[in-house]
């Protein structure tokens, strides 16, 4: 009937969407829900916090500064930076077994890898093995783009140039110095090693670097970073990758090696140890410190008391709040709530 149609031509559609009747759930935050909810959340947080805290407590960390600020330190002689290829030793004693898989880290302080210009000064194309950028590095690398204005630097940029180049050897002092085997494979991120960084396909690798020059601060060119393992050279050197993965905070530590070997599979046995350090990296000028860190890990990662404490605090706050709310509710119970 046309009249009927006309009559309702303007009538809005009566659908769930236009009438805002789509199924929705909006919690009514009444006392009956909120107070038990807070208690439950608080208890859960406390549980997690306790677990985290205990785990963190069980992680052993040994941290030793070897910058050589104090004159008593063996590395004092090297800290001035005047002696080339300076070697120094760092002694330490373990009274108990250092349990589990032990990781060997180096640490730096007051070092701003997160500085914007530091982070930007990288040529990602070059690092992905594009030989065109070997000869034509990006401008962002400046002033570590060319040497003498014409010879391109590979890898270019400040980040690469400032690569940490101290090396460490760990010995257990039994009767003679017994070298503790350190494994440097697989310490970088999988994605860095397999995706982000690639060597050019040229063989031998050295030829790809023809016409280029190593970064000014590097003692050796990129294709000679690891003389023992040819596959660990060039732009996919594990230490290089670890360095290029920038730390967010000025005080950081980076994985150097894993301690392996049949004698040390379940940890470092008690005894005296020494670390032989090839001291190259200058940190004194910017008030930085260098450290060696030995640590084992757990399911929650490295040692971190804060996380557990934070969980505990939040959890207990929730419980306290629920008690406060319970008291408030009991005192000023609103009649409408029933």
């Amino acid at each position: 009937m046309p009249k009927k149609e006309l009559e309702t031509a303007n009538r809005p559609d009566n659908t769930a969407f236009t009438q805002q009747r789509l199924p929705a759930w909006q919690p009514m935050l009444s006392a009956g829900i909120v107070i038990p909810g807070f208690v439950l959340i608080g208890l859960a947080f406390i549980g997690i916090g306790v677990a985290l805290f205990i785990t963190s407590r069980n992680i052993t960390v040994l941290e030793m500064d070897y910058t050589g600020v104090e004159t008593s330190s063996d590395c004092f002689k090297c800290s001035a930076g005047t002696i080339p290829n300076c070697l120094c030793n760092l002694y330490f004693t373990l009274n108990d077994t250092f349990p589990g898989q032990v990781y060997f880290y180096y640490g730096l302080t007051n070092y701003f890898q997160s500085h914007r210009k530091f982070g930007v000064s990288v040529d990602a194309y070059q690092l992905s093995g594009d030989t065109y950028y070997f000869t034509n590095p990006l401008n962002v690398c400046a002033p570590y783009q060319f040497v003498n204005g014409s010879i391109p630097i590979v890898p270019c940029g400040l980040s690469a140039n400032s690569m940490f180049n101290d090396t460490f050897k760990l010995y257990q002092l039994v009767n003679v110095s017994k070298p503790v085997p350190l494994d440097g494979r697989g310490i970088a991120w999988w994605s860095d090693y397999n995706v982000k960084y690639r060597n050019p396909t040229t063989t031998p690798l050295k030829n790809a670097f023809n016409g280029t020059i190593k970064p000014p601060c590097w003692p050796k060119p990129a294709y000679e970073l690891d003389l023992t393992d040819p596959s660990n050279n060039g732009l996919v050197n594990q230490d290089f990758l670890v360095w290029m993965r920038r730390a967010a905070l000025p005080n950081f530590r980076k994985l150097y090696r894993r301690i392996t070997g049949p004698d040390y599979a379940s940890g470092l046995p008690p005894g005296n140890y020494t670390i032989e350090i090839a001291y190259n990296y200058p940190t004194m000028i910017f008030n930085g410190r260098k450290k060696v860190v030995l640590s084992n890990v757990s399911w929650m990662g490295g040692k971190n008391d804060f996380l557990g404490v934070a969980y505990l605090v939040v959890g207990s706050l929730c419980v306290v709040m629920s008690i406060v709310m319970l008291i408030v509710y009991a005192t000023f119970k609103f009649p409408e709530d029933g």
Partner: protein
Amino acid sequence: MEQFNWVRDRWRQLISGRRLYSAPDSRSTKCSPELHNTQRLTGKRRTVIARHGTHHHEYHCISKGYQGNRIRTTKYSLLTFIPMNLFQQFHRFANLYFLFLVMLNWVPVVEAFQKEITMIPLVVVLIVIAIKDALEDYRRYRFDQKINNNTASVYSGKHQTYVDQHWKEVRVGDFIRLSCNEIIPADVVLLHSSDPRGVCYIETANLDGETNLKQREVVRDQPQRCSELTPENFTARIECEDPNNDLSRFRGFMEHPGKARVGLHNNNLLLRSCTIRNTETVVGIVVYAGHESKAMMNNSGPRYKQSKLERRLNVDVLWCVVLLVVMCLTTAIGHGLWLSNIKEAPFLIPNAASPALAGFYLFWTMIIVLQVLIPISLYVSIEVVKLGQIFFIQNDVDLYNDNLDSRIQCRALNITEDLGQIQYLFSDKTGTLTENKMAFRRCTIAGVEYPHEENARRLEVYERDEDEATGRSHTLKSRTSAKSLSCKSLSCNRSSVSLHTLTDHAEEEEPPSPIMHQQSPFCSSMEKDIAPDPLLLQKLSGLSSPRFLLWDASMELTYIVDFFMALAICNTVVVSSHNQPRHVVKVPEVSPKKLKSLDDIKMLFQRFGLPRFSTLSPTHTTEIAHSFTGKLFATDKAASCNPTPSKNATEPDGEPNPRPSLPSVAQATDGDQECEGEDKGSGERGSWTGLEDNMVPLNMGDMSRQELFISKPDADELIYEAESPDEAALVHAARAYGCTLQGRSVEHLLVELPGMGSLVVPLLHILPFDSTRKRMSVVVRHPLTNQVVVYTKGADSVVMDLTESAESPEQPDGLMRGHVRKQTQKHLDDYAREGLRTLCIAKKVLEEEEYEVWLKHQVFAETSIENREELLMESALRLETNVTLLGATGVVDKLQEEVPETIEALQRAGVKVWVLTGDKQETAINIACACSLLRSTDHLLTANCGSKEMCEALLLDLLKEVESREAERGDAPDVTSGFTLVIDGRTLDFALQEDLSDNFLELSRHCRAVICCRSTPLQKSRVVQLVRDKLRVMTLAVGDGANDVSMIQVADVGVGISGQEGMQAVMSSDFAISRFKHLRKLLLVHGHWCYTRLANMILYFFYKNLRISPEVP
């Protein structure tokens, strides 16, 4: 953002102005110097002369500055699109900010991101918006084309005839011939109409949505009234105002070569985009064309209001800017200090800059890096969200009115969330709380109350059946309104859109169907079918009764007849009939029937209707009177042999519903005898029968018999199209008693009186209603007595004041008048208590000389151009004095459905509801009770006083009373009882004055509701303004009529109710609803949702931006 919008709008105006209007002063040097002088002298006027007339040269000189009829609403042309669009887009603060950041990134020392990448978002945004603008503009262009290419019949000088031309070729000074149902292409002064009375009807639905017909008149003293106008011979010069946007005002004069001036006013102007109705052809001369026409000048964009939340948001964004600057400064200073501490940095990029300079650079870098801290995208997001909210509001089925088939209209797009923040609601009463469907309920005439009990029962039945009665009448109603709705909803948009509907409208135009016209505004059967009061009917039937002379209450009879006469003619109702849809009933051919009886009645009127005759000495005329009485009696007996006219009069054919049967002859006789008995005491009235015989031929000489006696028109179902429902109700009431308004022209009214058939009433003047005078008057020449009579109808307060002066005991009829006045006042109070709207009817007989004097002033006022309104008003005031009160009417106005529930819900939500009405105090209180604004437990505070000092004291008293009562009640506020302040207009005037307003507000804050009665539109807006500014609260004003417009505009949120009284309120509102009950869901559901959702979104936006910004490297 407000400023930016303002600037943008200004700029748009500037651009359009520059492009569209050629400078008016660039006149040709060929023009004669004297012409220049006239131009200069007239100042803000324009002169129009015929284009194809004899003064070709002059025409070109004068009309050079006038725009053609081509309209152009597009913003850009092909060439200017890119620069102009870019320019406009960069007026958005957000875009400028983005541009600034992009440019900053191009400075090498502060560059943070790759330059090209940072440009992408900005470029994308600009391109998308440019494409949108281009599409919109193209659409506008097409609409313009369509309208410009409409054809109209324009006089061509070459062909010496009317030829079809495109609208865009029409120029000022052209003659246009329009036929029925054509749309008017430009503002035209009406010079000729095919209608013999020189009127023309237009429908202004395209302009204001009102579907009733408006009458326009041919310019007075037009020489060629009957013959077709010949444009060549048109030598007159029209002087009128410069183009303006006032639709209801047009002033000017037409100067004939003989230097005779004829005033032009609004009634002579046909407005662009209106439609000609009921008139075959009209011819007019174009005075305003194209963008200078009033309709086009009235097109403004959508309203821009800034919501409270947005103002708050702006402050928050400013804080964000401060935070950003602080953060960047901190970084910059820290950077400088850090750098200055490092003496020799091996792994640092060597930087030639000093630490301070490096810090400065870093500042700008950080601005780029932390740019997201400023949620500039928030503004765009808010707009998108609000669009969604408006979509939901408009699509709410609960806010849809079945009967009118109308949804809610959101006219302001950005204050949805303010709906949820309303603290004070100001409501009009009539049409907002009530239906504004007026139905005549009862009346009092000459101090006698007629309770109309049958009528009351009938109304009750209607109220009960309201819900089921959506059948016939409502479908018809929706039909009419649906047609006009397309224009209503679109007219709020851009000009081009409304123009588009205009063209569409023309295409869709179908021959008017009878169904459509059966139902015109204010004509539901509830308003139409009035059951007459038996007693009154009896008295009135005395007029046609063969023995009316036996009944001695003739004085009362004249009162009654005058009363119904006033009801029937004192209005601006347009009559159309069923068979001739929307055509004015033509004056039918004459018939000499009932001639004798009419003569008699005429004489009767001359005897009774004129108070001055009563001064004649009774003894002097007794003898003549006696003989005359006998004669009259005899003739009337003869007349009674004719089919009695009262049957036709009291029972109009075609009325479908049953009504009480007419009193039988026997009853009538009884009634007569009763009245006879009642009035025996007033013996002096008998003396009025003393009538000079020679009066009869005198009157007959003035007006030919042929003119007087007219048979009934064949179509019985007359349709009244009134501007206000009161008028319609009263006309219908008069009709129920046989006083039927049958036709109207400029100079005549056709009225049927019981027992007399149709009479032509020469209409001399209409003094239209206005809100300051609160009354309207018509000046007519009485068809029977041939005297000049003024009928006044108006609010009881003003009319009572006018009658007051007339009341003096010296005058012989003073006693009677005093009695009537006293009784009527008593009845008026009763009516008000019952919640009826009251109107008083009064009349005044003018002496010829008196009329002549007044006429001179009136003509002067009409023809003057400078301050015509003031002069007219003055003239009206001069006329409306010393009137005789005839009686009063009580009109019932039903409360809208669910009003009490809505008000209660709003009050429970903490919204204070104020009712501002022009009604009487008693009526207002009654309605307030009915809609549960005022509860029985409430304490009523009434403020009525006459002077400022009294008002001050009263306010303080009331305040004290309220405080003491509140203290009594103690801490626990009783929910069930509160205070309600009732204040009348005069007191309100004092209370609104600077020094008392604080007291008034303080008092009103204690009250749960405030009712302001007898308030004028200006007072309404001042109250709203006072509350809004002084209390700093969110206010909402809701109203339906033109008198609420100012209030709606002042309030933070204006809501218009699209009801019976035109569209002015809707046009000025932010939201337009159709029922008051919709406010409940609109405020409490949609307002709440919009506010919480938007507030949460904004909070989340700030959180999100703060969260993201530090993670940008």
